C-alpha cells in the first residue's frame, strides 16, 4: 500500500518537475547570497556557514510544504485516500516519504556544493551532508503536521511557517551544531546523535498527529 502512495506522489512530482526545481533553486540562491553580500572574508564565512545553510534548508522546505496535501485536497483525492481501508497515518507516512525524496533530498545533495562557497573543508562538507541527511526527514515529518492543520485555510502559507518553524528549532540547533563542531575541530558525533534521536521521536509522533489533523480539516 505504502509503495503505491509513494509511487503516486513521485509520479505526480515528476509530471510537475518545475515545482521541485524551484525549491532547489531557492535554496541555492539564498545560500549564495551570503558570500556575495559579505565578500571574501573567509573567517567570517566559515563561522556563519552552518547556520546559513541550515536556515536556508528550513525556509526552502516551507515552500514545498504547502503543496503536501493542498493539491489532493482541491481535486478530492484526499477524501478518497482517507476512505481507503488502511490507517490514515500510513497514507501520511507515504506522502511524507515522497515529499522528503522530492523536496529535501535534492537540497541534501547540493548542500556540499553550495558549502564550497563558504571555504569549508572536505570533512566539514561531509558532516554538513550527514547532518542534513538526518535532519531533513524531521522537516518533512513535522511539516506534515503543520500542512495538515492549515489545510484549506486562507493564508495557510504564512500560518504554516508560524506553526512549524519554531518546532524546527531543535533540528536547527543540533544540525548546525554538528557542522560548527567540525569547523572548530571538535567531535560532531554528539550533535548527530541528538539529531538522530529527534528524528526518531518525530517519526513516532508526526504521522499520527498529522492523520488526526487531516480528519479534522476534512470535516
Amino acid at each position: 500500500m505504502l509503495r503505491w502512495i509513494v509511487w503516486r506522489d513521485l509520479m505526480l512530482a515528476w509530471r510537475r518537475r518545475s515545482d521541485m526545481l524551484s525549491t532547489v533553486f531557492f535554496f541555492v540562491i539564498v545560500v549564495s547570497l551570503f558570500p556575495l553580500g559579505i565578500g571574501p572574508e573567509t573567517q567570517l564565512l566559515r563561522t556563519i556557514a552552518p547556520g546559513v545553510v541550515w536556515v536556508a534548508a528550513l525556509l526552502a522546505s516551507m515552500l514545498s510544504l504547502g503543496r503536501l496535501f493542498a493539491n489532493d485536497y482541491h481535486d478530492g483525492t484526499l477524501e478518497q485516500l482517507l476512505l481507503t481501508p488502511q490507517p490514515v497515518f500510513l497514507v501520511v507516512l507515504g506522502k511524507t516519504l515522497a515529499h522528503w525524496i522530492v523536496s529535501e533530498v535534492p537540497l541534501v545533495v547540493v548542500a556540499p556544493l553550495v558549502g564550497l562557497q563558504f571555504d569549508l573543508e572536505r570533512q566539514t562538507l561531509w558532516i554538513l551532508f550527514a547532518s542534513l541527511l538526518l535532519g531533513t526527514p524531521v522537516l518533512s515529518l513535522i511539516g506534515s503536521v503543520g500542512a495538515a492543520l492549515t489545510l484549506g485555510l486562507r493564508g495557510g502559507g504564512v500560518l504554516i511557517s508560524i506553526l512549524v518553524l519554531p518546532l524546527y528549532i531543535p533540528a536547527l540547533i543540533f544540525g548546525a551544531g554538528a557542522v560548527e563542531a567540525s569547523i572548530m575541530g571538535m567531535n560532531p558525533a554528539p550533535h548527530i546523535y541528538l539529531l538522530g534521536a529527534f528524528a526518531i521521536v518525530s517519526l513516532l509522533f508526526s504521522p499520527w498527529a498529522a492523520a488526526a489533523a487531516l480528519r479534522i480539516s476534512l470535516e
Partner: protein
Amino acid sequence: MSPGTFVQLTGPNGSGKTSLLRILCGLLAPAEGEVKWQGADIRSLGEEYFTSVTYLGHRHGVKDELSAVENLRVSNALNGIEITKERARAVLEQMGLAGRDLLPARLLSEGQRRRVALARLLVCNTKLWLLDEVMSSLDKGAVALVRSLIENHLAGGGIAVVATHQELELASGLSKRLELTT
C-alpha cells in the same frame, strides 16, 4: 437498509444531501445519533468499514497529471485491488474512453474525467455505494451506463445511495426516495 436497496436522495441545493453522504461514509461525524454497518457503529469499525464502501464525491478525485489508466490503477490499488494495465484499459473502454486512456487527465473534458472516476465502480467489490451528484456533466449515454451499473450492483445484493437532481428510474430493485428539505 437490506441488500438490493436503492435510495435516491433529492432536495433543493443546501438541503444536506452531500452532508448526509459524508456522514454515511464516515468523513463527517454526525451531530447526534450514529451510523451502523452490520450492527456496529462505523466509528468503531474504522478502516474495516472502508472495505465495504465506495464513495464518489462531486469533486471526482481524478489526478490531472496522471493518465486515466494510472488514475484507475492507483485508486484501486489503494483500495486493495491491484489490476493490470490491460485490465484497466479494458474497463476504461467499457466506460467509453477508448483511445483517451493514456492521455493526462487534464486534457479530458469534465464528463470524461467523471467517467474515469466512475470506472472505479466497475472494478471495486464493495457492498455500499455512496454517489454524490455523479450524473452532472454526463451525457445521455453515460447516464444510461451508470444506471445499468447501479442495476447490476443491486442485483448482486449491493446497496446504493445516490444524491441527484435528475430522476433515476431503475428497472428493478427496492427503490426508495428520501426528500430532504432545508
